[in-house]
């Protein structure tokens, strides 16, 4: 008897309208990148932390972000092969998998998430901000592309504050080196008023972003500030900050969030609206992208929502008051770079996470430690203990990786999470008994 099997169709993932909007923006952007050469557009590659998108737009350059490309490769489960390709070519198994995914993708034809070839950059804007690996990443790309490479150093906020020396250093670099070189590459004269216009738009979008992120303080939280947060930060951290598109997206998203608040609803997940909110978490560290949905599901199926996260500040920290300021255009670009999460000292990070656990009334802190990211990971065990001490709330620690699927062990992660949720329950019932007594 012939046995036929019917392949089960994957369940259609429910998406927010804002997610659809973002998908459209990303598709347009990747098309623009793919057609850059044909359209006579020049391309600048840069990094998410320290992404001077407003400045790049002043020169009519199309912004290509290799980290975002690596994320897209991870989400599409292509990065594993790229990482191994890079390792075959001599890159160490110990180093950043974003870099290896990028190098491997280049080796395999540099095909972007839309199936079309990504363009060679005309300029590498090496924004050396919050991560040592960035320096080497763009040295590697420079070796490959032999194009103009512009270096901008963001001093580290080791003492928890921005000093005049830091601002002066960055503004000088921008004035005397970065801008003249961008002019040369693009053939476009720098117009500071044009930059001011973009910065004004950035500030508008940032207001809405902060409103959205801070809605996590509500109970139930209408957003997931980690998994959902990856979608929310896309436009502001990527090629859209300073554009009308970003203003529209965040205005749109804010309305959606308001609707959910009015309805007393939790966040939307790939499986539909989340049920009862049982656990409120603050998460530190980037997510895993290769098993993103599976990872997220481990949270929402337990009723766990992330109310605040540090990763949603990796491309800019806006929820402590900073806005791009058109009245001080170059100084504000410097302040933006200095304030990104990975450029903050460890004491600053502890303070931020403690603040989140308290202000957002979280049940505790979860750290997702990324194997190949020293910038985030080195010191996280101390961060965990310190936040526990200051908040009295339990913390948990799991280990995965950005885009190397070999370092995501679903069973291990799920096991740790389940134990953590049980611990939170026990602490709660212990606290209730204490109150009753």
């Amino acid at each position: 008897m012939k046995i036929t099997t019917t392949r089960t169709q994957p369940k259609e993932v429910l998406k927010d309208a804002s997610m659809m909007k973002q998908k459209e923006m990303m598709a347009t952007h990747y098309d623009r990148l793919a057609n850059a050469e044909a359209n006579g557009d020049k391309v600048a590659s840069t990094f998410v932390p320290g992404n001077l998108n407003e400045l790049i737009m002043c020169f009519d350059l199309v912004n290509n972000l290799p980290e975002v490309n690596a994320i897209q490769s991870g989400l599409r489960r292509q990065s594993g092969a790229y990482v191994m390709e890079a390792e075959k070519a001599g890159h160490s198994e110990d180093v950043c998998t974003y870099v290896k995914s990028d190098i491997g993708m280049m080796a395999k034809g540099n095909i972007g998430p839309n199936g079309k070839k990504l363009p060679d950059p005309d300029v590498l804007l090496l924004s050396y901000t919050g991560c040592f690996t960035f320096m080497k990443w763009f040295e590697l790309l420079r070796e490959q592309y032999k194009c103009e490479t512009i270096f901008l150093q963001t001093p580290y906020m080791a003492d928890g504050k921005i000093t005049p020396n830091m601002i002066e250093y960055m503004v000088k670099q921008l004035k005397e080196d970065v801008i003249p070189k961008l002019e040369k590459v693009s053939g476009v004269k720098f117009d500071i008023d044009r930059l001011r216009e973009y910065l004004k738009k950035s500030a508008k979008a940032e207001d809405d972003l902060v409103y959205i992120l801070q809605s996590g303080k509500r109970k139930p939280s209408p957003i997931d500030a980690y998994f959902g947060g990856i979608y929310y930060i896309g436009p502001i951290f990527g090629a859209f900050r300073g554009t009308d598109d970003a203003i529209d997206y965040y205005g749109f998203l804010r309305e959606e969030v308001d609707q959910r608040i009015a309805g007393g609803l939790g966040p939307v997940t790939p499986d539909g609206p989340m049920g009862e909110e049982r656990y409120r978490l603050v998460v530190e560290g980037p997510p895993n992208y290769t098993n993103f949905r599976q990872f997220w599901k481990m949270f929402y199926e337990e009723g766990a929502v992330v109310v605040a996260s540090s990763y949603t500040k990796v491309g800019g920290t806006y929820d402590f008051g900073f806005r791009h300021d058109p009245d001080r255009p170059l100084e504000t670009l410097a302040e933006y770079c200095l304030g990104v999460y990975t450029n903050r000292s460890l004491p600053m990070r502890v303070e931020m996470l403690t603040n989140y656990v308290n202000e957002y009334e979280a049940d505790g802190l979860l750290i997702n430690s990324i194997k190949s990211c020293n910038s985030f990971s080195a010191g996280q065990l101390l961060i965990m203990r310190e936040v526990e001490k200051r908040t009295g709330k339990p913390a948990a620690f799991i280990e995965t990786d950005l885009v190397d699927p070999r370092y995501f062990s679903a069973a291990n992660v799920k096991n740790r999470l389940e134990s953590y949720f049980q611990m939170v329950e026990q602490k709660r019932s212990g606290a209730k008994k204490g109150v009753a007594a």
Partner: protein
Amino acid sequence: MSEQTSTDIVERCQTLYEDLNFSAARQWKDAEAGRKVIGYMPVYIPREIIHAAGMLPLGVLGGGDQLEVIHGDAYYQSYICRIPRSTIELGVSGRLDFVDGMLFPSICDVIRNLSGMWKMMFPGVYAKYFDVPQTYEDEIGGKFYKQEMAELLRDLEELAGRKVSEASLRKSIQVYNVNRQMVRKLYALRAQKPWQVPAAEAYLVLRAGLVLPVEEHTTLIEDYLAAVEAENRPIRDNCRVIVTGMFCEQPPLNLIKSLELSGCYVVDDDLLLITRWLIGDVPLDGDPLHNLSQAFLHQSECTAAKYQPNLEEKGQYLVRAVQRTGAEGVIFASPSFCDPALLDRPMLQNILKAAGIPYIAFKYAENSGQMQPIREQAGTFADSIKLWSAA
């Protein structure tokens, strides 16, 4: 000049190297009331400033293979290198309880983050992340760096309870100029006659300079050079190699010895770069901080943690070192999980390939115990150079 033999000197240096209680530095501090000791990690800080403040700069390079890390491992995941965990071990075990300050140079994210950890773990101890420019224009990176040094100086003045004069700074620059001259002499002799200056001995002699007062170290190098020049050491049929990648987490001494035992003369390396980071003499006239800044920008060594703005120049320091020392190959020895060394390695290897210079690569940790695989790999490399070199 002393009557000591090279054996006497190296034995003393080995004792200093193995002493994880830093007795020599403690004795220096106890000898006079009010003295202070400032620890620093790799790769480079301007020790002249510490010296001018009347303080002893103390190189802290982790605990090596002699230190069992018990507490330090609780601070780091398995995929972080060993130097920060053994440095924390030194701290929490009280071995650094006499140190009045710690400096963390900008070399990588692990050491960068360690600076913040140190502030939280030892709140009563002065701790500073020492940022350096990666841009080399005088009025941009130079100005930033001068300001960074001025901040360090102000902090040390506060710690010392007194001002540091420009004259003191110039004096300290002069003292370190002389020390660097001696280090360069040591390296030059080793490159010329590596059988007279075994790499393990050179390392111990150099490393002593991280715990002794600089004046004493200069004399020690002088004495060692005089002693080895007077000795008749057998020449071996070794090939000449440069070892690179060891600029932060240190290899076990046995690893350096193993390379020599396997048939290699190490004619140059990037161990303890602080001893010769500034290539020439720093001028003594004019503004001392300005001079130190100029020296850093324009007359300093290359390493993975330092940006090279010129693509054509990338890695050429290694090619020039091969040419200068008559090296026949390069050994990339990188600590496990070391971002600077491991990310830089493929680019440097491409440059060597283009220049027709053979190389091998391996990883180590500061507490690596198994030397056999390294001896085999280095030995095979040495044999292949001898068998198949153009000579």
